[in-house]
């Protein structure tokens, strides 16, 4: 396996190890992947956080766990087509080949793909779909658990009934018309009923079986997951032999692991390290996706209640400096609510540039000529949050320049989101800083900008936005939805319930031996074409 294994002691001091390696001029050597004669090699990915529960939809480690683990083991009836990098991905068939919706806009019929086998060799069919939906939605099913029900509810909650129409067709009926139903189903993962029966529903995470490109080998819970190529994968066997994902929450530890060859791919390298990684031969892959780093402001009380004040703050931020100098081009400035890599983005909607004078004028108009004091809760880390505290500090300083004195209160990401999911702000601030990937999961959009969301949205409410979201949701026509979303998001831009800061470009650093990655305009990615040479 590894020829130049670092001593455990050195591995325990990753920053120091990295320093030594810089001094001795070693670059990413990809030793982790020099897996003897294995053709496609072993890809070892250093992830930024805890890895997910491997039982289908439970996840629980943010979207990063989904992209690197859950979506590699399992598929839904549909999937994102992540083969290209030029446009936001569209939905295509996975375990279903085609679908149609009836006149009532609620009854969907899915034709299932022939000849697909689960990784345990059992056949995929309509009964498997019904079995999995029972496990997620039917409290009377012996395989249903509360955790599964809660997790599946986000995407499958609108399903009223389902049944098999023969062996290769299923009918799903939604409670309300849902135009983005095929998109939602990409997240409703289908597992092998036979495997679930064998292990029992509670222990399925120990031996998960799906239809995805990689099958499960072993794991150290939350820390490391080892997968191997599914040779019988219906789209063709992936080039890689093995895929290992390991949790390395510390950015310096990730960079050190890449340099030492313990991993040959890292997610989110520290932007300040990118130049030196590049100089050492690493490839830095980036692309836009539906990401926004923003502050959610409390629009119900205090100074942020006044839209002029919220707009003023948006004009006060020097986003270009954050994107260019702090993040070294791994993010783009966000001038509006819609992230640039979404089908709802319209360049004409770019509204907020850097204009401190205008900010001061708006503040004076709103009666805050002398500025005001406020507070924001900022997470110290978290999937997709980039460099949360440094970005927040840059925003804080820009706001201070126009008289808005924002106190930063830091807390850990789990504390922040668990309070947010209950409609609260950790540490009781008037704003929270966070990031989100909204638009490739349309089902979630109303949670962020709709009235009466169970999440904390700063109490934002605009009936026109609600109406447009409802109209979009009901429409199976993508162009129609695009128009509705565009209008809704331009209203959000104008209302400015958020401070729009940057759109991430999803940077990852790859050892020179890693070939064949197409970086899509998505948080998710397709690893079937990736290989690791010697």
């Amino acid at each position, binding site marked *: 396996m590894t020829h130049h294994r670092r001593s455990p002691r050195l591995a325990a001091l990753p920053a120091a190890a990295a*320093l030594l390696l*810089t001094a001795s001029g070693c670059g990413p050597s990809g030793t982790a992947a020099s897996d003897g004669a294995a053709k496609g090699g072993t890809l070892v990915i250093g992830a930024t956080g805890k890895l997910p529960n491997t039982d289908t939809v439970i996840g629980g480690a943010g979207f990063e766990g989904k992209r690197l683990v859950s979506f590699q083991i399992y598929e839904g009836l549909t999937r994102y087509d992540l083969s290209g990098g030029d446009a936001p991905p569209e939905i295509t068939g996975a375990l279903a080949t085609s679908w149609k919706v009836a006149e009532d806009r609620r009854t969907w019929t899915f034709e299932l793909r022939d000849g697909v086998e689960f990784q345990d060799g059992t056949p995929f069919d309509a009964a498997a779909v019904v079995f999995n939906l029972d496990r997620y939605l039917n409290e009377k099913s012996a395989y249903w658990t509360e955790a599964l029900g809660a997790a599946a509810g986000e995407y499958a909650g609108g399903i009223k009934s389902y049944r098999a129409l023969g062996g290769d067709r299923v009918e799903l009926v939604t409670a309300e018309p849902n135009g983005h139903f095929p998109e939602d189903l990409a997240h409703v993962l289908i597992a092998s009923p036979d495997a679930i029966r064998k292990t029992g529903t509670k222990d399925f995470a120990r031996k998960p079986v799906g239809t995805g490109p990689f099958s499960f080998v072993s794991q150290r819970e939350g820390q490391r997951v080892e997968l191997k190529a599914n040779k019988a994968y219906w789209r063709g066997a992936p080039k890689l032999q093995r895929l290992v994902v390991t949790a390395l929450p510390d950015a310096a530890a990730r960079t050190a692991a890449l340099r030492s060859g313990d991993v040959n791919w890292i997610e989110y390298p520290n932007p*300040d390290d990118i130049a030196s990684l590049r100089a050492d031969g690493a490839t830095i892959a980036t692309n836009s996706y539906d990401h926004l780093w923003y502050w959610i402001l409390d629009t119900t009380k205090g100074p942020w209640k006044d839209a002029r004040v919220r707009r003023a703050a948006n004009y006060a931020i020097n986003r270009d*400096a954050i994107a260019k*100098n702090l993040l070294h081009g791994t993010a783009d400035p966000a001038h509006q609510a819609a992230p640039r890599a979404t089908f709802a983005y319209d360049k004409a909607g770019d509204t907020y540039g850097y204009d401190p004078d205008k900010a001061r004028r708006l503040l004076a108009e709103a009666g805050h000529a002398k500025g005001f004091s406020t507070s924001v809760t900022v997470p110290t880390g978290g999937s997709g949050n980039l460099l949360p505290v440094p970005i927040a500090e840059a925003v804080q300083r820009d706001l201070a320049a126009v008289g808005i004195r924002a*106190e930063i209160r830091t807390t850990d990401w789990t504390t922040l989101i668990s309070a947010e999911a209950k409609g609260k702000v950790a540490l009781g601030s008037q704003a929270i800083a966070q990031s989100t990937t909204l638009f490739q999961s349309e089902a979630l959009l109303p949670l962020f900008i709709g009235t009466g969301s169970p999440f904390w949205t700063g109490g934002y409410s605009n009936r026109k936005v609600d109406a447009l979201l409802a109209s979009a949701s009901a429409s199976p026509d993508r162009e129609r939805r695009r128009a509705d979303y565009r209008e809704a998001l331009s209203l959000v831009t104008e209302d400015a319930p958020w401070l729009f800061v940057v759109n991430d470009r999803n940077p990852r650093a790859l050892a020179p031996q890693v070939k064949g990655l197409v970086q899509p305009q998505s948080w998710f990615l397709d690893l079937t074409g990736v290989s690791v040479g010697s």
Partner: protein
Amino acid sequence: MAVPVLDPPLDRPVPAVTPRRRPVRWPGAALAVPAALAVLLLVVATAAPLLAPHGAADGSLTGRLLGPGAPGHPLGTDGQGRDLLSRLLLGARPSLVGGLLPVLAATVLGTALGIAAGLGGRATEQALLRSLDVLYAFPGILLAIAVATVLTPGLTATVLSLSVVLTPAVTRVAHTEVRRIRAAEYLEAARVSGAGRGAVAVRQVLPVVAPVVLAYASSLVGLAVVYAAGLSFLGLGVAPPAPEWGAMLDELRPALLTRPELAVLPALAILAVSVVFNALGEALRRRVGVREELR
């Protein structure tokens, strides 16, 4: 690194002695040097706003991570483009407050508890000492983190949590000293002549206990500065953009690979303070004649 260990002196009977005035001696260099440096640190911390060339939050993202010697920034700039010299100077105050206040609080509280345990009768003594043993069961920094986590992050949280951590150690030192003298004849004499418990504690016991406790406490300052820095490093201390050495260390940590010469600066400041106060404590300890075996 010269960090004192929080282990308490052993509880064991020591022969009773009567206090006597020690002859006043001119302190040797071992005391004078660290004492002068400690005073200098306090002066710098107090006068920092006058000394610092820039404000703590001033800077621009276009001048990030400039190396030492950059124009206008003798020690360079941090990840937000702020002047490091200014932030180190301005950070001295919260860093020292985080180190000194908890020690002060622990000294006062610990001395009172130690004397109360020593003079208060067997039941009180056992109750007090055993409940402090519970706190001893946790490693100091873990206890500090646990306490700080339930408070709102900030300097107050740092001071409170470190006070909780340090008090048991001071109590043990004070208690041991009380045990040493509590059977002494002059205490008996005071009691016989009608002095109440309070009067005995304040007039007879405190003057004996205080020098020993003060010497021990000054050696805790270095430890407290390191702990306070640790709490800020974990995001449980001061809030950004306030300059505090532990927080600065955390902020510069990502630059450890690219700019090690900047990233080590706050660490050096923490080390320097820790060494100065350890040396001071050591010198004081020798001066008041606390015997080695007590340590």
